[in-house]
């Protein structure tokens, strides 16, 4: 029985693929690519998170300033009424004078005699494509108002974040393409090394599906293992990056190993990476071997 157990693996690998498809080379290359893919996924996710934060938070804000007398002469209610009628405005709220004074204190110091303007904070329904145009329309709807459209800067930051997200996704596709190429080259080398054995199996009645399936199973195993290794290597790196980016997302960076923001990592995507890599390896090997087998009768 022990003898049979020792013998069986060789018998089940008639093509000798354990040696023809090198585990060290293919898994090592795929591990490096999985590491890059994990960084690209996390980069895309991080950029998308920043974009969403800017778009949904500060990005949707504008301010309207009225002269200090506006609160007393009835212009403030009229302005609020006019702003409420604009579809782009989700909410318009006058800023509390005490908060305004606190905001200005770093620049003006304690100056109780100085009359402060009336400031209305606007929360927009969505980020305007042309913030300056909306500012002009608001200024026209509220006579005497000065509109601060800092959304222009936010829009530029948003565009930058979206570009980063797109670049990260493009990098992910590029890594996937290189992985397919690497697997295809490795499988072709394996075919060249086992050409006679493949021809023999074919002559003995093996189907294309059988022969391609043997290569695909081996490639899927090696690529999946490489994908798992690369993903595991990426986790601490990503946790470090997430910690560095914490202030941008409004949280304080942690200290020490346990203080890293582990929960913020894209765990579902990272968990999907090894099986997706294995599936890519399987499909690439199937296609490569079947194309080669077409030359046989």
């Amino acid at each position, binding site marked *: 029985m022990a*003898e049979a157990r020792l*013998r*069986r693996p*060789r*018998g*089940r690998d*008639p093509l*000798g693929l354990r*040696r023809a498809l090198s585990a060290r080379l293919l898994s090592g290359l795929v591990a490096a690519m999985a590491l890059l893919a994990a960084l690209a996924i996390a980069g895309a996710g991080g950029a998308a998170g920043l974009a969403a934060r800017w778009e949904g938070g500060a990005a949707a804000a504008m301010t309207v300033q009225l002269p200090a007398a506006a609160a007393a002469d009835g212009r403030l209610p009229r302005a609020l009424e006019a702003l409420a009628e604009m579809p782009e405005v989700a909410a318009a709220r006058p800023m509390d004078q005490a908060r305004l004074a606190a905001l200005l204190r770093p620049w003006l110091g304690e100056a109780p005699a100085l009359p402060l303007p009336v400031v209305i904070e606007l929360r927009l329904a969505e980020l305007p494509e042309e913030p300056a145009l909306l500012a002009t329309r608001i200024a026209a709807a509220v006579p005497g108002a000065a509109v601060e459209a800092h959304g222009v800067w936010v829009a530029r930051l948003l565009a930058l974040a979206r570009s980063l997200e797109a670049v990260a996704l493009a990098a992910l596709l590029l890594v996937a393409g290189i992985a397919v190429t690497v697997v295809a080259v490795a499988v072709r080398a394996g075919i060249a090394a086992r050409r*006679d*054995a493949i021809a*023999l*199996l*074919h*002559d*003995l*009645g*093996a*189907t*294309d599906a*059988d022969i391609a399936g043997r290569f695909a199973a081996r490639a899927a195993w090696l690529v999946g293992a490489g994908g798992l290794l690369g993903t595991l290597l990426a986790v601490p790196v990503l946790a470090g990056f997430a910690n560095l980016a914490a202030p941008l997302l409004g949280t304080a960076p942690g200290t020490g190993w346990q203080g890293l923001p582990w929960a913020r990592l894209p765990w579902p995507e990272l968990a999907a990476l090894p099986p997706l890599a294995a599936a890519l390896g399987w499909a690439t090997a199937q296609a490569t071997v079947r194309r080669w087998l077409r030359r046989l*009768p």
Partner: protein
Amino acid sequence: MVRFAGVGLHYADPPGRSSGAGRAALQDLTFTLPAGSFHWLLGESGAGKSSLLRLMQLAQRPTSGVVEVLGADLSRTRRRALPGLRRRIGVVWQDFRLLPHLTVRDNVALPLRIAGRAEAALLADVAEMLRWAGLESRADALPAALSGGEQQRAALARAVVMRPALLLADEPTGNLDAAQARRVLALLQEMHRLGTTVVVATHAESLVEAFPAPALRLRAGRLMSHG
């Protein structure tokens, strides 16, 4: 069982040496081999014996004519149906084609595994074949450790382990001494007695005299005589 009608086979010219017509390996072959028959395939080296066997084992399609093997017309049979037919044909190649990284037992078991036979079910058949070929003591040896005669018998055991309807052998005694050659031929004739259609290619006329049987005689790709 095997029917050839006006069969021709041309190989393409090597790159850079194109004459347009290619090289004619076989020309206008017409014959029929009944089920359960034993035939010699005779001819000098280069006469086309191996090409004819390749057509019979469905490893090649003819350039012209009709090849019918095991009831299937090769020119009309779809590619995906050929593996099933090949499993019913046993072949002993001149160079044995044993896989060097597999033991004799695993080499002999290979056709059964390809056919999807369960591991538990195939061990008895393999053991019987190894006994039949006189290789039971060499079951766990790698081919490189076998003598030429043992390798030939291992190849023969692999060819017959599926109980093929058609058994083809290409120069099966070419590399063997007289005693080993007689032993291999005795095994081939035993398969014939069990009802298998057997075709044996050789250029050794002495073998034919020792084991008289109908013969197909080829010269320069043409069939010179049949019977």
